[in-house]
């Protein structure tokens, strides 16, 4: 089969949404961060759609304009397809997504699919698929046609005339993959218990059907999902770059010098994981916020968060702080720098920064502390001539492998020039036989920086070439001094032979045993002749970071929620070289035990950093205090801050609880401090900062605090409780506010007054009817409290005013008063009788109260 051309493909996905696809299954998910695996439930449709989504994701990932797909759904409640429109029939088949290059929207639309109430006909879908694809491609004959059928095979099929369909598919050269939910698979192996007869027959049919196709296959969905995450190496064909191989002075002593046209191409090239894009939650503008709030009230379920992709931007600034040395971030030797610490130092530093525009800047170099101006575009470069110059040869045995600095290149003779091939071949072979390699200097283009390297003669089966690898310049080698491990000298200048740093004979023996036992040359799989092959082969070792990152990227783009659908575990193929082969470990067990015993290596407990005597003492870090404080804010839930943020608004109320508590206690603490000391803001600056951090940092995306300066530290401002100035009960959660204030005990009168105000306020607003029940509840509570706490007059005044507000004033709210009247006596005046029972007084008689509520 000729190599498939990348792209130029239309893939049709035919998805079964019959009711049976709504059957749920349990899918085991890996535990994230060491947690136990979780089992979640999802419908077969959801599960199988993952396959389609991953396939489509791959297309998005590759981003080819010529890689298109369409989705056809069968077993849909509706009918909408090209054949039905023209000829009728083909019911319950819908062209769900027209053929196009997929994007994120395609995935979003797929995710909306749910099982229907009618079952559909797979063969109909196939025929619609063929027709849709064919019409789309028109005369584009060379395009590859693919079809993927996703079904559980649980529904009866009309298996007539299918031979014609198969024939048509072969004519059009369409390949078909049937991905079956719980189809039996010998290889996996999988066998479904209690399989229905219909499904048995259907499976049978699919096998027969695909066997008739030139390109047809039936597979188990589980297997397909597993295979799709198998690492797959993108083969890159290296470009051949022309250059010239030279020996001697080709310009003035041409006769005695060599010049060959050669081509270089990469032999190894460092591949990196696909980069991640950065996102942040988009903050709504005021207008949008209002709209969103309105939306939220009407339809809570539909609330969405929008994340925007971020772009990188570089800003320039002048640091006016001259003490920057003092707070230069420290970098640990072992590279475990404290990210937070650095971040903080940065923030601290920002205070001294003056932003400058790039256009105003001059380019130059630093020569120590001095400025060295450079001409536009940098200093002139060294004049060099393109080509690879041979400088000399040396014995291969003396080659120091560890000096190789980077990627390896092939150097080929010009494939179009036999003379160049023969000439290069003679040099390669002569060098190969003599066992020498050449030192060479390579300039890849005119005036590019030269690189030194070696040319290594390589004889393949049918062609000779060189391999080239870069060698270090003098500057690239760092000759750090290291103490000898073999020769220990004591202070008297004598050589020590017996020392804990030197291995004993016994230890050396144990090590030899160990090295022999851990040999990998026979630890691999058996080859065809039954001989064991070496274990570990670079050509089979996949870069785990690349493939794992890709898997996670895809997964994140496909699933609706990572909380319920965490990333599946890495493919076993990625981890196959992560542990020594079991065979070898078993063989080496004794040797390992012996080594452990004789070498007796012990981990040294980490020493506490000694306090230095002089003034180089590390200044106490603000950060440390912060951490402590964080812990004090006791009810800090498990997931990290950023995680909680992603979980979004719906978590906000519950989230705010612990935080407002801790903040509240802080506020109180501060208040106490203020009581004791009027200018406390100066004495407790740290506290203030901390509060700032606790309160604002996690919620920067929210509205700015309302202008209530006296209480700006109150936690309540953070969530807008819509409290009018001076009120302690807000319109958002009046009952909650009220109860909280009552429980404090000392602000009862105020609380009663404020709740009364809020109720009147709320019912005078538009759309108040939504909150009638809430308000009635408030009134019951208010009345109860009024009675108990001897606020009887307040209630009686309130209820009178409420009636007036409802009945007489504009805008009024007669409907609400009707409700109140409906409840009747329990919400009327508090009468003398009632009051006296609680030890209070009322100037309203029982009959007056009963009459009032009737009016």
């Amino acid at each position, binding site marked *: 089969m000729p190599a498939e051309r990348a792209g130029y493909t239309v893939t049709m996905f035919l998805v079964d949404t019959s009711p049976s696809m709504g059957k749920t299954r349990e899918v085991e998910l890996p535990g994230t961060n060491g947690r136990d695996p979780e089992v979640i439930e999802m419908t077969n449709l959801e599960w199988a759609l993952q396959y389609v989504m991953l396939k489509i994701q791959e297309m998005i990932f590759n981003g080819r304009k010529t890689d298109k797909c369409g989705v056809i759904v069968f077993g849909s409640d509706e009918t909408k397809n090209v054949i039905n429109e023209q000829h009728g029939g083909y019911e319950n088949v819908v062209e769900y997504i027209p053929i196009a290059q997929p994007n994120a929207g395609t995935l979003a639309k797929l995710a909306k699919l749910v099982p229907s109430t009618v079952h559909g006909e797979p063969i109909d879908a196939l025929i619609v698929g063929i027709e849709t694809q064919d019409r789309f491609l028109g005369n584009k004959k060379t395009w590859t046609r693919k079809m993927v059928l996703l079904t559980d095979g649980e529904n009866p099929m009309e298996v007539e005339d299918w031979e014609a369909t198969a024939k048509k598919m072969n004519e059009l050269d369409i390949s078909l993959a049937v991905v079956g939910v719980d189809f039996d698979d010998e290889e996996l192996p999988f066998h479904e218990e209690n399989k229905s007869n219909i499904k048995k027959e259907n499976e049978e049919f699919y096998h027969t059907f695909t066997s008739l196709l030139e390109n047809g296959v039936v597979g188990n969905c589980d297997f397909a999902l597993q295979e799709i995450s198998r690492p797959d190496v993108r083969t890159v064909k290296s470009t051949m770059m022309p250059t010239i191989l030279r020996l001697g002075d080709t310009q003035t002593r041409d006769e005695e010098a060599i010049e060959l046209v050669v081509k270089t191409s990469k032999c190894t090239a460092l591949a990196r994981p696909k980069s991640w894009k950065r996102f942040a939650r988009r903050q709504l503008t005021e207008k949008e916020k209002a709209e969103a709030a309105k939306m939220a009230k009407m339809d809570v379920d539909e609330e969405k968060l929008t994340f925007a992709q971020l*772009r990188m931007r570089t800003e320039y600034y002048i640091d006016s702080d001259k003490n920057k040395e003092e707070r230069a971030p420290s970098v640990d030797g072992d590279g475990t720098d404290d990210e937070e610490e650095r971040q903080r130092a940065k923030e601290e530093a920002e205070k001294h920064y003056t932003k400058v525009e790039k256009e105003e800047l001059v380019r*130059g170099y630093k020569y120590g502390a001095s400025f060295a101006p450079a001409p536009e575009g940098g200093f002139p470069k060294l004049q060099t001539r393109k080509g690879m110059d041979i400088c000399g040869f040396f014995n291969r045995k003396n080659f120091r492998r560890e000096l190789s600095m980077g990627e*390896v290149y092939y150097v080929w003779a010009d494939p179009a020039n036999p003379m160049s091939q023969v000439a290069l071949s003679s040099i390669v072979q002569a060098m190969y036989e003599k066992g020498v390699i050449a030192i060479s200097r390579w300039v890849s283009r005119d005036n590019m920086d030269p690189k030194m390297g070696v040319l290594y003669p390589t004889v393949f089966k049918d062609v000779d070439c060189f391999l080239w690898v870069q060698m270090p310049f003098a500057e690239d080698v760092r000759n750090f001094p290291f103490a000898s491990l073999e020769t220990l*000298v004591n202070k008297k200048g004598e050589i020590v032979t017996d020392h804990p740093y030197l291995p004993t004979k016994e230890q050396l023996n144990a090590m030899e045993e160990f090295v022999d036992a851990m040999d990998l040359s026979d630890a691999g799989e058996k080859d065809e002749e039954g001989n064991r092959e070496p274990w570990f082969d670079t050509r089979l070792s996949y870069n785990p970071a*690349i493939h794992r990152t890709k898997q996670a990227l895809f997964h994140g783009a496909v699933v609706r929620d990572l909380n319920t659908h965490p990333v599946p575990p*890495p493919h076993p193929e990625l981890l196959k070289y992560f542990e020594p082969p079991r065979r070898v470990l078993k063989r080496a067990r004794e040797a390992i035990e012996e080594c452990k015993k004789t070498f007796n290596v012990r981990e040294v407990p980490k020493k506490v950093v000694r306090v230095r005597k*002089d003034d180089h003492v590390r200044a106490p870090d603000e950060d440390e205090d912060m951490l402590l404080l964080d812990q004090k804010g006791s009810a800090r839930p498990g997931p990290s801050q950023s995680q909680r943020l992603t979980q979004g608004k719906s978590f906000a109320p519950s989230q705010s609880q612990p935080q407002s508590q801790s903040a509240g206690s802080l506020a109180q603490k501060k208040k106490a401090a203020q009581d004791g000391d009027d200018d406390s803001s100066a004495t407790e600056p740290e506290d203030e900062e901390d509060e700032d951090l606790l309160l604002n940092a996690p919620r920067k995306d929210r509205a700015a605090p309302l202008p209530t300066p006296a209480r700006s530290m109150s936690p309540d401002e953070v969530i807008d409780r819509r409290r009018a100035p001076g009120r302690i009960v807000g319109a958002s959660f009046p009952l909650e506010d009220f109860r909280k204030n009552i429980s404090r005990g000392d602000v009862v009168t105020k609380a009663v007054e404020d709740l009364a105000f809020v109720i009147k306020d709320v019912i005078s607003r538009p759309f108040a009817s939504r909150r009638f029940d809430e308000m009635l509840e408030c009134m019951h509570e208010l009345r109860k409290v009024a009675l108990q706490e001897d606020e009887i007059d307040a209630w009686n005044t309130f209820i009178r005013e409420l009636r007036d507000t409802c009945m007489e004033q504009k805008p009024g709210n007669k409907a609400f008063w009707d409700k109140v009247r409906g409840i009747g006596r329990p919400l009327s005046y508090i009468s003398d009788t009632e009051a006296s029972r609680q030890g209070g007084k009322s100037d309203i008689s029982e009959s007056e109260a009963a009459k009032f509520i009737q009016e």
Partner: protein
Amino acid sequence: MAPFDDWNKLDDDEEEELQDSSLYEGKRDVILFCIDCSPSMLELYEDPRFEDVQTCKLLTALEAAMQVQKRKVLVGPNDAVGIMLFNTTKRNENDEAGADLKKGTYVYQPIATVDAPKVVELMQLLDEARENPEKLAEMFPPMPDKKRVPVGDVFTSCNWVIRDGAPKTATKRIFFITDEDNPHPGAASSRLIASARTTLIDLVQAGVTVEPFFISTEEKPFDPSIFYSSVLLATNLADEDGLGEDGEGQILPESISIGQIDELLSQMRFHEVPKRALFSVPFTLAPDFTIGVKGYGLITEQKRGAYRYFADLGDRMEVVGSRTAYVDEEQETEAEKAQILFGMDLGAPSAEVEEEGGDEHKEAGAGTRSVPLGSRVFYTPDEVRSFRTLGLEPGIKLLGFKGRKELAFEDNIKHSVFIYPDEMTYSGSKRTFTALLRTMIKKKKIAIVLALTRRNSSPIFCAVLPQEEKVDESGWREPPGFHLIPLPFADDIRSAPIEKGFRASDELKEAARKWIDKLVVKNGSYPPDSYPNPALAYHNAQLEASAFREEFDSEAFEDLTEPKYDMIHKRAGQLIKAWKQAVHEDETANIVAAPVAGTKRKADVSVDEAEIRSKWEAGALNKLRVDQLKDFLKSKGEPVSGKKAELIERVSDWLQNHP
């Protein structure tokens, strides 16, 4: 082409991978030269390099200091250097730094970031001293009557100088240069040794390392055991054996350099860059059998310094810092670091979908993704890191051993890293490491390991190549340890694009063999030291000239990497000529490449080189067709882009350069 300043900009993710070199740049290095100024250091002798020039050890030491300054400025532009002299009667004036130092010590240059005026000042002093050999003795008069400053006082002064001038986080080192191995003979010796030792401990505890350079001459060999071995401690407290092991670890510090005065500079070169570990990780040989190792980058590409942006503040040029911000471009808002999440590029919406898509697509406009409340589709930075590390913690894990020959030439992708045992994390590491090293050398083995060296990098497989400890004639010790050579993954390997080609006959091979024989360096290897990076040197020379406001003379620049043409032609010229002759007469070489089957036959456009040359000589290149010109250029590996006029020019250039 991208604007100049975008060239060097690394993608963010690469940055995380390529941290090796940034480690060196992140931390500043401070060196205080502490030079003996006694009469023996000032004693004049004939300069071995120049005729009729007198020099002295102090002059050479100062010159070495100047050279180090000049190099420092290029390698680490933020590094600071200072110079202090001792055993001189010269005193710092009251209003300068160092006025309160111990008697007998004098700060010539306080510690500060190296800058051009400072280097110039030292260069001028050196020039004057060469013309007038008495100059140094006049400037820094030695203490009379063979009196010497107690070494303890010298260290105390060093401590003060460093305290005043060095940033806290920097690595701080004292290059201690003297030729006197017995500074305190006589009765007080033991007391002075004790005080010197105490003050040195103070220094070490302040994070300062003393690196002695002892000058030895034939007449007066330097014997460290008289005085200094009782004073000096193991080099680096945190790095090596520590103070607490006085009883057992009676081993001399590793970094004492004793040598001739002429070797001073080359010895300093070894110490020029402070020895810093790239990582310190556990090396697991088998389950529950773990030692500690540190990794060092012995081979790291030295790149030219990055240019910087400067703001003209009128009176001076101030370097401008840069900061990367992540912004939501549509709303022009900057995202806070803590709020940034990671996901996949959303891709541009394709045209077709845009057309048919309704509101839904507008809502989820380009560059945004809407998700229902409470669900999560993006990853946190921690998760992203775990995808890269696969949940591994930093460490090296042994997988097994293979024969030395299994490490192929082409299995290379990055530079190697050197590992050396770290007794401070696991006691017994050194003996185990040494035993492993000896065994692997004896059995000619390499090891295969899985390595994750930094928390932020990703796991790689490495070949572990043992290096035997060797001392060469020059006294340079080849350090004992392992080279960790990163192996390519399947993802990094590219297959050979050519599988078949014409091959040479045996005669031709023999002809080639003859000139190769003549050009082989006996017992040679690749000598890095012979090849200073010419592009870097060219750049730095211009930078230096610019900083000193001098003219740069490009004519004086010598590229040492160019082949030694004269030598090549002298040794092998005739043999090469013979080989060329043989190639031209070879039958296979003259096969006209058969057109590849199946491709459309083109009209034969190939024009002989001789024909083109004659056209060129006749000035009639424009008679040739574009495809003919292109064909010719292609065969010479030259670009074939551009209009006909450009092609003709390029052909002329080539013919000009290849007579």
